[in-house]
């Protein structure tokens, strides 16, 4: 069964395009797509309905009352364990375009209404007080002290580049995308999604390896093997993505040969966003 392309489903939910006869026929018989469309449509309705909803933080005394009602320790307070951290933003975007990244006001203090900010909240690190004393000087170190990066930063850093991955002739219908994310600590990862047609799932399917290739053809590096339809790969810190702008997924035999097989499935050029 040919499911509706996820981006097309999103476009249907947004009212960006009308469903055609083929969509309707599929939605009538595919519960998964119909349910997905219903949920996305509901999300869009909510999104539109949220216009003008401004978040208002409670006044500071509300925390004081909670603190005293629960008899919390004296030094526990919102923000006490917060260290504002300036991310090292040496992003592809700047390197390639000279664009200055947006900055935004810091999160409003608890007394002020939280207005729609024009840009991102700065990433912050949240460190428990007990641990903070231990890790002073270890900032940038891994684990131990980093207790709460801003929600998005841990899950996904700032998206700095994207590529649509297009099929080679031997792999018609294959397609994918690559998104480069940069975290507050400057490390970068690329998230590669490919269509299921690439991941045949059969036991004798080839291994699939992900590469960064220089646009001038003078070099390539392997960044890992792709399992399933989605993978997240670290990008070595010395790699300049302006030079290594091609993301390539190749079919590899399980023969121990570390070189590229020459059999690329999809490839695309990273675009700075």
């Amino acid at each position, binding site marked *: 069964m*040919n499911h509706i*392309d996820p*981006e097309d*489903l*999103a*476009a249907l*939910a*947004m009212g*960006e395009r009308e469903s055609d006869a083929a969509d309707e026929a599929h939605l009538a018989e595919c519960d998964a797509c119909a349910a997905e469309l219903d949920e996305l449509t*509901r*999300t869009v309705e*909510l*999104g539109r309905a*949220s*216009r003008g*909803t*401004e*978040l*208002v933080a*409670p006044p500071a*005394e*509300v*925390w004081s009352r909670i603190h005293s*009602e*629960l008899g*919390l*320790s004296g030094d*526990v*307070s*919102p923000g*006490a364990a917060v260290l504002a951290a300036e991310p090292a933003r040496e992003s592809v975007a700047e390197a390639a375009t000279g664009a200055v990244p947006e900055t935004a006001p810091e999160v409003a203090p608890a007394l002020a209404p*939280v207005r729609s*900010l024009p840009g*991102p909240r700065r990433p912050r690190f949240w460190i*428990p*007080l007990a641990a903070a004393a231990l890790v002073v000087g270890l900032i940038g170190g891994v684990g131990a002290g980093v*207790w*709460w*990066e801003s929600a*998005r930063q*841990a899950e996904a850093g700032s*998206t700095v580049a994207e590529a*649509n991955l*297009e099929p080679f*002739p031997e792999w018609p*219908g294959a*397609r994918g*995308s690559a*998104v480069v994310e940069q975290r507050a600590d400057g490390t970068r990862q690329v998230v590669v*999604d490919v*269509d*299921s047609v690439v991941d045949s799932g059969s036991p004798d399917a080839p291994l699939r390896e992900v590469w960064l290739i*220089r*646009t001038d053809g003078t070099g390539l590096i392997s960044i890992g093997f792709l399992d399933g339809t*989605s993978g997240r790969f670290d990008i070595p810190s010395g790699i300049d993505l302006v030079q290594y702008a091609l993301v390539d997924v190749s079919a590899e035999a399980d023969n121990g040969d570390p070189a*590229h097989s020459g059999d690329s499935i*999809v*490839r695309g050029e990273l*675009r700075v*966003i």
Partner: protein
Amino acid sequence: MLFNTVKMPPGVDPDQAQPVRDDAGRSRRFRTDVPDTTTDEQTVADAFRAGDENALAEAYTRWSPLIHTLALRSLGDAHEAEDVTQKVFVSAWRSRGRYDPSRARLGGWLVGIARHCIADAHEARARRRRTEEAYAAEASTVVAADTADVAGVADRVMMADELERLEPIPQKVMKLAFYDDLTHAQIADTLGLPLGTVKSHIRRSLVRLRTRLEVNDEPYRS
């Protein structure tokens, strides 16, 4: 060597913003490329459940604007909204042992508690009104608690909160789509992005927003 001869797959215009249309016969699987719970939220949720007071402070920092705004919009009274905000975090802390991180994000659980507290506030209001009416020796008209749209308000406030937490570019894309009713092409023009990138942001953001708007409305009280 393949690399110096083939830069891009043949037939593909590298500047083409639009991906190639599907061939007939391809099959797709839905991707769940957006995790429901971020690692650090999980860390805070676990610490919260384990009784770490710092985690309560972090949860308050993260979610008190959402809870307070929900109460404010549902009750229309600043004083009552502050009381509800206080009650939500006090109740959540006292019943933290009943919070199951595997069933709900901490924020969703807190919103569920807030709904109960808001309903209680509406009922208390109605009781006061009935009492006043009884004193006034008037015919007692039972006033139903006005709780009909608390869930709707909660959804909208959570959505506004989550939109603010998107990365800057997806956030701009979604606000132009939701609030300014721009088409994908107009958004691409406005932000100077390829159309394909706009489409991809919209899909990813919708999926992310959808997964993050879940409320655990189970009773939290014994």
